[in-house]
């Protein structure tokens, strides 16, 4: 067991190194950072000004030194300061995580619960008219652009009918007022694909041998679904949920931007607009790190539940 965990951990570390390399290619080889320098100096800068800025941010060093510096930043979580706000990036991220999480966690939780209930129902009445209509509806919902949901939701519910504030955020309990509408929009955007995925998980279980055995022993349909099928289908569903959690902390870039919620998503969009590459680099790295961590966690949880995996 311990050997398995250590092996997975080592593999995850190589993945983190891979992410660092990709970030290096993006910002230091393909010129992401130099673009930022050019942006800061403007069109009419002299070569000396450009050179002094390059020296200040360490772009005059060799590629190898730059890579080492990136590794140092990633390992110590010291990404320096933002180019625009001059704040420390680590404290910016710490501040942004709370609004992001308070929007995304409830929204995601509601989506998952709803999707589980409806997909169980679909599996129960599979291939009935109800099931088919729901599947088509789910696909239709997936086919609408997220921008359409946001723009229309904000316009109708907040601007026209004045049910919610148009945008903004306040910390504490007051946040609830501002979060309901974006959360609602998140649920309607995400429910289609989750529902379809969970339905496949449920249907995978419905055709298993243990279901036939249970039926042969005289188990009723509802008991079969809720006790046997749901329990087994929960394994892939939980994996799916664990993998999604990092994205919850990252927040939704578009929702936060539209509703002016000062979370990590909004921060990334603003950093993109100002080409504030140290912030972007830090947020991207952190997001990847959490994704890899989430995967590692779900692998370990899996191996605790199912001993066969450890042998692979």
């Amino acid at each position, binding site marked *: 067991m311990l050997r398995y965990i250590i092996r997975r951990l080592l593999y995850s570390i190589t993945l983190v*190194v891979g992410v660092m390399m990709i970030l290096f290619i993006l910002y230091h080889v393909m010129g*992401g950072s130099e673009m930022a320098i050019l942006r800061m100096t403007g069109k009419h800068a002299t070569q000396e000004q450009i050179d002094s800025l390059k020296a200040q941010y360490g772009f005059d060093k060799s590629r190898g030194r730059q890579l080492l510096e990136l590794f140092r930043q990633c390992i110590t979580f010291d990404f320096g300061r933002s180019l625009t706000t001059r704040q420390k990036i680590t404290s910016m991220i710490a501040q942004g995580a709370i609004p992001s999480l308070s929007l995304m966690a409830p929204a995601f939780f509601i989506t998952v619960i709803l999707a589980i209930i409806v997909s169980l129902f679909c599996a129960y009445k599979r291939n009935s008219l109800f099931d088919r209509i729901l599947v088509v509806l789910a696909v239709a919902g997936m086919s609408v652009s997220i921008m359409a949901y946001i723009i229309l939701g904000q316009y109708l519910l907040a601007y026209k009918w004045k049910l919610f504030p148009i945008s903004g955020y306040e910390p504490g309990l007051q946040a609830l007022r501002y979060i309901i509408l974006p959360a609602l929009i998140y649920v309607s955007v995400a429910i289609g694909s989750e529902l379809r995925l969970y339905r496949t998980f449920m249907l995978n279980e419905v055709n298993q041998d243990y279901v036939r055995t249970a039926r042969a022993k005289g188990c009723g349909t509802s008991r079969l679904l809720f006790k046997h099928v749901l329990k087994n289908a929960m394994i892939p569903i939980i994996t799916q949920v664990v993998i999604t959690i990092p994205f919850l902390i990252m927040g939704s870039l578009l929702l936060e931007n539209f509703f002016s919620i000062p979370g990590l998503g909004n921060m990334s969009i603003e950093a993109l607009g100002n080409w504030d590459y140290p912030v972007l680099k830090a947020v*991207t790295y952190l997001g990847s790190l959490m994704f890899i961590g989430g995967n590692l966690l779900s692998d370990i949880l899996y191996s605790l539940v199912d001993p066969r995996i450890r042998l692979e």
Partner: protein
Amino acid sequence: MFQKPGRNRHSLWFVAFRQIARNKLALTSLVVIVIYVIIGLGVQLGFVAKDYNTKHKAPMELLSGDVKMMFLEYAHPSVQFWFGTDIFGRDVFQKTLYGVRTALMIGVITSLIAIPIGLVLGAVAGYFGGIVDELVVWFYSALASIPPLLLILTLSLIFGRGLKGVYLAIGLTSWVTLCRLVRGEVIKLKTVEYVQAAKAVGAGHARIIFLHIIPNVFHLVIINFTLRFCYAIKAEVILSYLGIGVELGQPSWGNMIQSARQELQRGVWWQFGAATLAMFFIVLAFNLFGDALRDALDPRLKSRQ
């Protein structure tokens, strides 16, 4: 899994074709896709949406007094302008039609970038195994760990605003799904008799991969090609909304939706509605058709039914 005798003479493609021909939803979707492709080709060849960029002038009687209405801005939908006009008096209907070309181009060109990468890397990794396999898997796992939207946004910013940036950003980041599927399939395929036989008669690695293995995973490419249109079209809208997508002069659904945010408050809903609807039908059609293709072409799913 046991097939009835006599069924074997039908190839995978024939059985799949028959299955899709019976599926009304899939056929309808195919018709929608074909209509869009015809529109897109028409725009490309100059038959359709010729004057998408014409700024229609306001009629003379409206120009009395203050001369602010130079162009027929925000005309309501009418017989002349089916979906009304935009702020510069351009016909929204023609802009929407032009957007079909933009959307299809994005789907096709990102596929031309992503599919070869995914196919070749997946096939090579699965075929050779060992250290090659581990390197490929390591690379795409690392790439897939990066939040996708942030990766695309950063890339398109680096490549600069414009269609080229959109193509490269979406193309270079969306090959991982196909690569994974191909790799898994090739690992299974390389122990199959015909591959063993090719090896025994002295076929080289390249010949086995490109002539024997890739044709047999090509159904995965077809499914991926269909479904990735949905992804590419949706990604374009987000990129254009954030101002790092298609250039403003070129009509695209993303650009139209971007202008719609301010327009809605003035009661101008037609540009938003036209772009959203045009996008909805094609993405829905690609989604449904892609699903039908997957059901028809993926043998593993077939055995489950």
